[in-house]
């Protein structure tokens, strides 16, 4: 069993989960993920590793409630999870590339932190860029600011920082800075939009793909994506891929494969657990 050290909703619908997982904390590298199970009947849920502390043996993830399983995780009152598996996936190579931009949305605001930190330590100029609908939905700002040479906030309603989203802000940034590499972590749509901006300027861009997974060790092939015309398994070949060659349309469609079933069940369970 794996102990939950803390679980809290840090801003509306963004949850921070800190777990005791010394093995994983010792091995984790930027770009990797973990799989969690609440209990035997639960799904195997993949989450981006957003931080870890090898000394204290802890790992941190951020997640949003988007369906039945994440709702369960939010409402889970137990002290332990039945499984925490990782670190999985290929670490993203860290080197001195020059100026590195990291853009985060949703859970990716937490997810970009390990890469930003490692890139900073490797001597890069690090620019981080995060987005939210409104100022009250921003999180992880302090941590990111610490590891960034430049830290930019974008809100859709303009209540803090620049008005717009990461893909709006990056437009100006490209004019101001000479960017050697860009990394985006967030929902599929956000990553695709960001790529559309960077690729016209030939900026080498990486994204952390988020297809549906089951085992997470390359055994089932559920998470296959087309990258550069080849089928890749996000769990072992990724999750971070060079973005310009990703078949986004396929990813959207595969990710929606169970949406109908899940929408019905999610509603049913929400009502049930709220006593409706």
């Amino acid at each position, binding site marked *: 069993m794996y102990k939950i050290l803390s679980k809290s909703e840090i801003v509306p619908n963004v949850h921070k989960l800190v777990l005791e997982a010394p*093995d*994983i904390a010792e*091995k984790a590298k930027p770009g990797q993920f973990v799989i969690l*199970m609440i209990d*035997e*009947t*639960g*799904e*195997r849920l993949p989450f981006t590793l957003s931080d870890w502390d090898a000394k204290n043996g802890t790992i941190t993830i951020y997640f949003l409630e988007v369906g*039945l*399983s994440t709702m*369960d995780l939010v409402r889970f009152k137990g002290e332990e999870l*039945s*499984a*925490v*598996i*990782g*670190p*999985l996936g290929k670490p993203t190579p860290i080197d001195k590339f020059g100026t590195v931009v990291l853009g985060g949305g949703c859970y990716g605001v937490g997810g970009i932190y390990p890469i930003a930190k490692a890139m900073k330590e490797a001597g890069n100029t690090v620019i981080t860029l995060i987005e939210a609908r409104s100022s009250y939905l921003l999180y992880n700002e302090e941590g990111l600011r610490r590891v960034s040479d430049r830290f930019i906030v974008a809100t859709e309603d303009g209540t803090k920082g620049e008005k717009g989203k990461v893909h709006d802000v990056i437009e100006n940034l490209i004019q101001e800075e000479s960017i050697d590499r860009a990394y985006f972590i967030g929902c599929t749509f956000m990553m695709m939009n960001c790529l559309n901006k960077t690729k016209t300027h030939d900026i080498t861009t990486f994204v952390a793909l988020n297809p549906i997974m*089951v*085992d997470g*060790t*390359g*055994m*089932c*092939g*559920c998470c*296959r*994506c*087309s990258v550069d015309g080849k*089928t890749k398994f996000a769990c*072992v070949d990724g999750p971070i891929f060079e973005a310009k060659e990703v*078949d986004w*349309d*396929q990813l*959207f*469609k*595969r990710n*929606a*494969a*169970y949406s109908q*079933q*899940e929408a019905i*069940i999610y509603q*049913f*369970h929400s009502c049930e657990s709220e006593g409706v």
Partner: protein
Amino acid sequence: MDAKDKLKIPRQKMPEQNPNARAKNFMEVPLGYSPKTAQLEAQRCLHCKIPKCMEGCPVGVKIPEFLKLIVEGDFAAAARKIKETNSLPAVCGRVCPQESQCEATCILGKKKEPVAIGRLERFVADYEREKNLIKLPKKLPSNKKKVAIIGSGPSGLTVAGDLIKLGYEVTIFEALHKPGGVLIYGIPEFRLPKAIVEAEVDYLVKQGVKLELNKVIGASKSVEDLMKKDGYDAIYIGVGAGLPRFMRIEGENLSNVYSANEYLTRINLMKAYLYPQHYTPIALGRKVTVVGGGNVTMDSARCALRTGAESVTVVYRRAREQMPARAEEIHHAEEEGIFLKLLNNPVELIGDDKGAVKEMKCIRMELGEPDDSGRRRPVPIEGSEFPIKTDLVIMGIGAGANPLLTSTLPTLELNKWGYIVADENGKTSMKGVFAGGDIVTGAATVISAMGAGKRAARAIDVHVRSKK
């Protein structure tokens, strides 16, 4: 009873769930022998001076001896006799291809039908378990030597069972959240009830085998950690062939196209057929098409039927005689209404506007000259393409070597397909590292993996004892 009388006894049938009923449930298909039937069947053994059946068993089960104990009515003793050499009798009695092993070499089979060794093995193992007669075997005193086993499938469990009796401290590391490997995620409930796998694993745990679940060696821990930090004296790699193969045809990444590994994992390990009580969903196809001709293909097809498909078609590029699936599995599948479309091969999958598969384009095949496997090579008939309407496709065309662990071991010799190079005793190019099962041979059977585990266990014992 003399031989003449014995020859008069017909091979005893095992009752089965009726095909119409069982096609709608996940309960076991064959229902097992009664004690009386088992004794009658066991009486058929001629007790040859040189028992050929034993030569056909990869783990050397003392077949005539356990049959004799059945005749005498001491069923639990018969089970323990098997367990002297085979730690998973309830599993083997169900999923071993006896028709090509022990029963193939049974002398009775020459003129009549062979003794139903597999069914009897199953009977005694079930009897012992159900009557709570399981006794732990004798164990040598601890030798304080530690062995790590990577993977809790049939070969890993066999190594564990053999070494724990020799006094080793044995730990099995399993990547998934349940032990059993392919016995848990691959083989469906109706062929191998999971409670039986749990009981067989529990038998090892009670003997002192330690289980570390959710540990992906190569990711959570390295082999080097195991040897240097944790002080294991030897490592056994039995991780299976966990890399699904696809055909590399157009449309293979459409939604509702699964590898058999994924489909079976969702059903068996994650219990997606109990959705939403279990949270892992699965696409419920109406017209399901499964590609391939092996046991995994048949398992997938029969699972699809049980999740409510209106029709399930198996598309196989060769002819029936060349199907690698057990005859019994093909027979069961056809009885349940699964349709075999032989000498056909998919060339393309076509999707609807939501990206879900709606049609499979196939081409007819004919048999040409024999290929490397000795089977006549299937050759496409030009211009014979035709469409099959389908809303769920399962690719059951085999599995390759999963590189997750092996890629972290630069000094471990692999062959060109990525399988580990090991001698017949499981010895690899790395000192103290042994391997066996599908990660060495490529996808094979449960029992051949167990045979490899047995030989490796002996080699590990020799290796550890020879160390200073």
